[in-house]
């Protein structure tokens, strides 16, 4: 009730009482009723005036006392009978507090059940909000935790953990610090040590780019989760939570993240817990099974490391990064995905230090956080040649019977625009199949010229796009790049400030494109998918790393990833025959040394090398292959940045991965010196 109303009511009552008194004593100068004759009886007067006067004054007193009781009674009636629910609710609010309890995050397993991500107990120092006002305590805490006092205070003052919860100051505190705090409790009033679950990556950096990492929720995530708070089943983050920030941890956050429990407690005025009331159990997150095979993944990472070391050993210190990828072409399951340089997701647990973060995100360190399989973009180089062949056959630029004379220097657009085949000595007379096998550039220059002058000058681009280049493959990992298929319109808009000639599409652009050089950009994932499509004669399954979501009870799964076709590509069967034949030729015919690495395998392999050139850099080597060649199951791709020829670096990575899959390690030590591309 409005206090003004109360006062007004009170005043009104007092006024009424006063008026009553006055009315009773009407006409009297005193608060009495004197009917004349003031002589007290003591003096012998016969009149009872004093008695009469007192009687009325006492009536006034009765009204005074009576109205006090009346007013109190009325107000109590209104409070205890009318507004009882409102006050009861306030009393309940007073004495109950709801504390949220953390839910364990789901684990991440490989396809065979190997734990890739799990949770481990961690000791956490938490503090009462009042500690922030105690300079001595903050300084003391800062000293033993090795944090700046400002940071300690900021952590304590952080509101997002909820008004009542104890605030997290530091996680993964050492036993030494814990025992110091516990031995000196009197120094650390309002500070406590709790055990909490922390993310743990038992294999260190293994599979880091797939798994991603976790962190505290960002301001955006906190705001977004608060907006969805009312929706049932949605996750509401608090700042101490562990939230996926990259990779699978991010992609399947909603599956991995559990639902916080709630514990309602009765507290006293000081906030001490007196009793426990209702509680809602925390619901732990679901375990995720990946399609990744930890064994193959290990081999892939090691192979990548070895290949880069091999290149560097030969004196090419520019080579410091690369990627490797293997997918089951029949269902899109990703068997391994490796990117180098790499990082350990463990560094992010409990908050990454500024130094570590700067190190991980800097250019000099080679962007270890970047997943080069899905986000690395390079010219495809000769690995594009099968698609160029499809285009040529489709648009009638060439046929299976076409023949070309390679002299090593092609002058199709005139001498001044002459271009070298990588084999400067020339391949001699080659047909289309041999063009693929030996990766003869002259063959494809002719095809490019043919397109340039044909009615379908962008037939190449159309074919590439049909095969998925220039668009993302939709893998279930965040931050996938879509690459770039250059065409006349793109070039015109891209080089806005160049002159008209430089902006317009030239014949040289087409001949560059047809051999996968120049402005074309692809990701290793895209190229792997292209080769998966060639291997299956046109069916590209959507690549995915999630295999299933485990059930909370028993060994079953609540959800299995159902493979889906990402892209159905139509080419003539005869074209497939020619290209597949050519790709098998690459492995077994192109170079003796290269072939020696595959003839020691029981399975037949088909594939293609590639060497992408960028001015001022060592070339980036590609190698993409699928196995078994006659009934393909796996496509394996590798790309080594500035690694030199594909046959000299990426090939080893691919071979080692196949060796891990089929348990047939590479025994050949032959080194390719022919420089096949």
């Amino acid at each position, binding site marked *: 009730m409005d206090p*003004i109303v109360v006062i007004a009511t009170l005043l009104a009552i007092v006024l009424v009482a006063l008026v009553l008194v006055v009315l009773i004593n009407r006409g009297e100068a005193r608060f*009495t009723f004197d009917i004349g004759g003031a002589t007290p009886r003591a003096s012998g007067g016969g009149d009872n005036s004093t008695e009469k006067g007192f009687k009325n004054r006492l009536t006034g007193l009765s009204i*005074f006392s009576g109205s006090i009781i009346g*007013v109190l009674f009325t*107000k*109590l009636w209104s409070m*205890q009978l009318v507004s009882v629910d409102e006050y009861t609710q306030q009393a309940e609010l007073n004495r109950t507090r709801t504390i949220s309890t953390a839910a364990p995050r789901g684990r991440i397993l490989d396809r065979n059940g190997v734990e890739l991500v799990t949770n481990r107990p961690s000791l956490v120092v938490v503090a009462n909000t009042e500690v922030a006002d105690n300079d001595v305590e903050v300084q003391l805490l800062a000293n033993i935790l090795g944090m700046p006092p400002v940071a300690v205070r900021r952590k304590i003052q952080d509101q997002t953990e909820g008004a009542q919860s104890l605030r997290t100051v530091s996680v993964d505190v050492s036993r030494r610090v814990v025992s110091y705090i516990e031995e000196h409790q009197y120094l650390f009033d309002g500070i406590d040590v709790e055990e909490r679950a922390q993310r743990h990556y038992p294999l260190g950096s293994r599979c880091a780019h797939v798994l991603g990492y976790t962190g505290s929720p960002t301001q955006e995530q906190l705001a977004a989760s608060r907006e969805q708070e009312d929706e049932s089943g949605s996750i509401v983050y608090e700042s101490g939570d562990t939230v996926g920030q990259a990779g699978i941890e991010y992609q399947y956050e909603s599956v991995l993240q559990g639902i916080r429990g709630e514990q309602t407690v009765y507290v006293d005025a000081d906030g001490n817990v007196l009793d426990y009331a209702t509680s809602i159990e925390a619901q732990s997150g679901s375990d995720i099974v990946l399609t990744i095979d930890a064994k193959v993944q290990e081999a892939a990472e090691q192979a990548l490391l070895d290949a880069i070391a091999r290149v560097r050993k030969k004196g090419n210190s520019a080579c410091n990064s690369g990627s490797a990828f293997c997918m089951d072409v029949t269902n899109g399951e990703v068997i391994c995905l490796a990117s180098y340089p790499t990082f350990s997701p463990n560094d992010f647990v409990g908050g990454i230090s500024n130094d570590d973060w700067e190190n991980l995100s800097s250019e000099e360190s080679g962007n270890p956080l970047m997943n080069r399989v899905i986000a690395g973009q390079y010219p495809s180089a000769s690995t594009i040649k099968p698609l160029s062949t499809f285009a040529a056959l489709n648009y009638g630029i060439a046929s299976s019977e076409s023949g070309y004379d390679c002299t090593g220097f092609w002058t199709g657009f005139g001498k001044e625009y002459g271009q070298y085949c990588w084999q400067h000595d020339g391949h001699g007379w080659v047909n289309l199949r041999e063009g693929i096998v030996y990766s003869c550039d002259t063959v494809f220059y002719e095809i490019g010229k043919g397109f340039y002058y044909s009615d379908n000058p962008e037939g190449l681009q159309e074919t590439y796009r049909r095969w998925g280049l220039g668009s993302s493959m939709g893998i279930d990992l965040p931050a996938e790049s879509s690459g770039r298929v250059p065409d006349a319109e793109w070039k015109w808009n891209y080089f806005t400030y160049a002159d008209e000639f430089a902006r317009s599409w030239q014949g040289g652009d087409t001949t560059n494109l047809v051999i996968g050089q120049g402005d074309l950009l692809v990701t290793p994932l895209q190229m792997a998918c292209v080769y998966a499509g060639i291997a299956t004669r046109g069916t590209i399954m959507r690549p995915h790393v999630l295999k299933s979501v485990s059930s909370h009870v028993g060994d079953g799964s609540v959800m299995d990833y159902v493979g889906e076709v990402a892209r159905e590509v139509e080419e003539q069967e005869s074209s497939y025959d020619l290209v597949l034949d050519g790709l098998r030729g690459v492995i077994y015919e192109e170079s003796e040394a290269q072939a020696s690495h595959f003839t020691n395998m029981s399975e037949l392999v088909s594939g293609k090398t590639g060497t992408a050139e960028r001015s001022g850099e060592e070339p980036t080597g590609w190698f993409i292959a699928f196995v078994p060649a006659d009934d393909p199951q796996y496509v394996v791709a590798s790309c080594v940045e500035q690694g030199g020829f594909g046959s000299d670096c990426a090939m080893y990575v691919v071979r080692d991965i196949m060796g891990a899959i089929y348990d047939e390690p590479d025994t050949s030590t032959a080194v390719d010196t022919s420089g096949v591309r």
Partner: protein
Amino acid sequence: MLFRRDMIPEGIGEKAHTTFSRGSGSAKGARMSSLGISQIVFLPQLVPTIMLVIFGTLVIWSASLTIPEASFMRHLFGIFLGTIAGYAVWRYDYRTISNLSTALLIADMVLMLLPKVPGFGYSAMGMTGWIRIPLIGLRFQPSELAKLVTILLMASLGAEYNGRIETLLDYVKLCGILTIPFLLILTQPDLGTGLIVLVSGASIIICSGAPRSWVLVTIGMVVLGATLVVVTSLTPGLPHILKQYQLNRLIVFVDPSVDPTGDGYNLQQAKIAVGSGGFFGKGIGNATQSGSGFLPEAHTDFVFALMAEEFGFVGSTLLLGLFGWMLFASISLAQRVDSPFAKLILVGIVTMWSFQLLQNVGMCIGLMPITGIPLPFISFGSSSMISQLMSVGMVQSIWRHRPKAA
């Protein structure tokens, strides 16, 4: 000359009411003895008082379950001491002090100044209002006793006029004497007790037969003065007569949302305690507001809120009913006795109880500003219990020493 005693009103009734004779006659045995008790004890006032004290004991016992300061044994000890003091007052013929007004005034002043004596006084809650009784180490609040002494003082002075104050000088003199204890209490400073003294004293002056116009003018001047004090205290630059906490209590009274942690918090918690009690209350020991420490001073100043939370509207009504019974019984006694001195004592005591009831219960439910005034017979605290039981003894003494028919 100051205390003119040329008229002695006490004798009047004895001669006038010769028919007042319930106790006389030939009844024998049990009937005789019960009649005998009601001859010397005024049951209509004593019975509700005893019930209030029992009720209060129950409330304090339940408070003692959760509040360590609320020592149940100390409460019982207070009642014990109060009963002895009340018994002594009852046995004592109050009429003998009717012409001792000078002594009463001196006693009053001594009581007020006692806490100021170095080594004797004791300060708590920002007040120097207690004395430490040397041998037993008990603390006593003399201003509690001073309330009764002031009532006796004012009654003895007012009775001189035999129901009619003729001259302005007499009226001013009465008012002037009343301001002495009032101002002395303010120096402790104890505004709450001061107000009780002022209101009871004023009530006696009015009932002594002061002309209405004078009274109205005086009330007007007091209200004006009080307003002036508040306004100057609120205005920066002017002398702040009221202490900041007193101002806060006033501000919070007008708008409880201003200060949710200090006095506003206390008021809010008291209201929640009272309101959430509902019809039957939460039961003894189940009071969450007072039991879990949300309600401050739950056994002293805010004891009503504790009672209302545990016993609900039923308990509140019972408490108000017992007070009403007791007050009206005392008023009826005032109407029945002839002596103006007795009448005025009763007027003072009834006003004191009524005002304390209004003030204490009122502040728990947001009707009055917060002041540290105990609820008579209920609040924990021996000083209050002793002086209130002495007041009861006074009422009983008036009955016992009433003029009886032969």
